[in-house]
């Protein structure tokens, strides 16, 4: 029964200003890339309003919350393999930690871009995708060319429920991708030490987990501490062209830098078609991320992720 302190200490003002400018710049680039997009489909679900926008050959999936519409998934119809959004490209960096995953779990389907890419890149892999919102599954099939096949299955379920059931059924994965956060809302039971430990328990001995999360947020320190407690050492991967932060951890010790470089060279040709310059990634893998270790990890008992995020 520990009493909790209120919102975090404020970072220094200049740092905040720099961050704000950086965030605004990136946001403007994103906005320009999607500007004047026309809404071609709007569907209310139990959880959100799902929008599909079109600008030229690029269709994007968005969840309508406030004015700030952030793309969840985008598909370029002229180049369907090309991964339009930076974070989807960055998530493929996980392939450098586990070279040929045979079983892959993707939490959060969105447009189904990642499961489709994995299935194509890895012809022997089986991909399970978990999506809470059945409307999103329908939209992925109708507008983003997503197809369920013998190798790609979708489960409409809450991720936490799926994870517990999968553990009970001895399902194990070589790669687990956590991509369930919207730009506005974090399902708080999916950012706790307990959830990450349950996820870790689904990994094979060589398994890797990669998560798509936010770069600038009041959660940064809490989230890092939560990862550290659940997974031990982890890699933080950020780029100057994305607001996202990719976190990666492994059930086995993380591979040497030289091994990662070598794998990047092996993947290079294959991934070029997807718009991914994988050889640029290893240099941006931060193996010693820093954070304020006095910040509490989030647990099932203490999980105010959204309040903490807004509290920056």
């Amino acid at each position, binding site marked *: *029964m*520990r*009493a*909790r*302190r*209120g*919102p975090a200490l404020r970072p220094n003002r200049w740092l905040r200003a720099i961050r704000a400018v950086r965030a605004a710049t990136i946001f403007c680039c994103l906005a320009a890339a999607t500007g004047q997009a026309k809404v071609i489909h709007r569907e209310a679900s*139990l*959880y959100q309003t799902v929008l599909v926008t079109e600008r030229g050959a690029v269709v994007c999936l968005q969840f309508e919350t406030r004015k700030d519409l952030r793309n969840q998934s985008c598909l370029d119809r002229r180049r369907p393999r090309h991964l339009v959004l930076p974070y989807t490209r960055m998530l493929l960096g996980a392939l450098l930690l586990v070279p040929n995953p045979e079983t892959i779990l993707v939490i959060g389907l969105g447009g189904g871009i990642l499961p489709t890419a994995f299935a194509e890149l890895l012809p022997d892999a089986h991909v399970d995708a978990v999506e*809470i919102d059945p409307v999103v599954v329908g939209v992925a099939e109708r507008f983003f060319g997503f197809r369920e096949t013998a190798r790609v299955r979708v489960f409409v*379920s*809450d*991720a*936490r*429920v799926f994870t*517990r059931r999968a553990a*009970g059924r001895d399902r194990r994965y070589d790669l687990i991708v956590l991509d369930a956060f919207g730009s506005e809302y974090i*399902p*708080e*039971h999916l950012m*706790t030490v*307990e*959830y990450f430990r349950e996820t870790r328990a689904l990994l094979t001995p060589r398994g890797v987990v990669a998560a798509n999360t936010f770069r600038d947020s009041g959660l940064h320190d809490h989230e890092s501490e939560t990862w550290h407690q659940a997974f031990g050492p982890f890699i933080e991967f950020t780029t100057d062209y994305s607001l996202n932060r990719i976190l990666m951890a492994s059930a086995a010790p993380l591979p040497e830098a030289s091994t990662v470089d070598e794998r990047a060279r092996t993947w290079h040709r294959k991934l070029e078609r997807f718009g991914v310059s994988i050889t640029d990634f290893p240099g941006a893998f931060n193996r010693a991320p820093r954070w304020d270790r006095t910040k509490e990890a989030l*647990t*099932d*008992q*203490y*999980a*105010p992720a959204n*309040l*903490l995020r807004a509290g920056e």
Partner: protein
Amino acid sequence: MFHARTIAVHVAAFGGGFVIMSLELLGGRILAPWFGGSIHVWGSIITVFMVSLSLGYLLGGRLSLRNPSLDKLAAAFLCGGVALVPLVHAAEPAMAWLFDLIEDPRYGSLAASLVLFSLPTVLLGMISPYAVRLLVRTAPESGHVAGTLYFVSTLGSAVGTLGTSFYFVLWFEVNTILTGLVVALAVLAAVAFAGERAS
């Protein structure tokens, strides 16, 4: 008008409303690790609270027919507090058991809500009608008394909702808040008990 007895009953009504809604919001937090954050989890919780409250109203009204006293109101608070204690210690194994027993997360969360929250909520639901009986002396004033008590207890519910969702979950662990609710119910029992003695 404002003697100790009246004040004690109103404080009790406010506190009862506060605890009920605080508990309901914590319900979502308690169930999420097992049954997720889907809309049906909230559906289960709200259903169980509504059914339990309605039963509590029925029972509280019935019990108020025979020798109503603030001491008995105090007993309802104490029992409500005792019924909350297992939530701190036994919620996890209970949910683990139900999770394995029931495959469908809709019925799993409904069963879990029923097991965890129905008893305390029935007990806390008894407070409102019982409080009305304690303050009503004549038929013409009954509507006024009931209206004032609804006002106070629903205001308590609003404060419990806001306090829990905006602040308590940011400051404390779930079990700490639950323990706080048990302590609050014990204090409310003491207030009712003292109200009986003071008048």
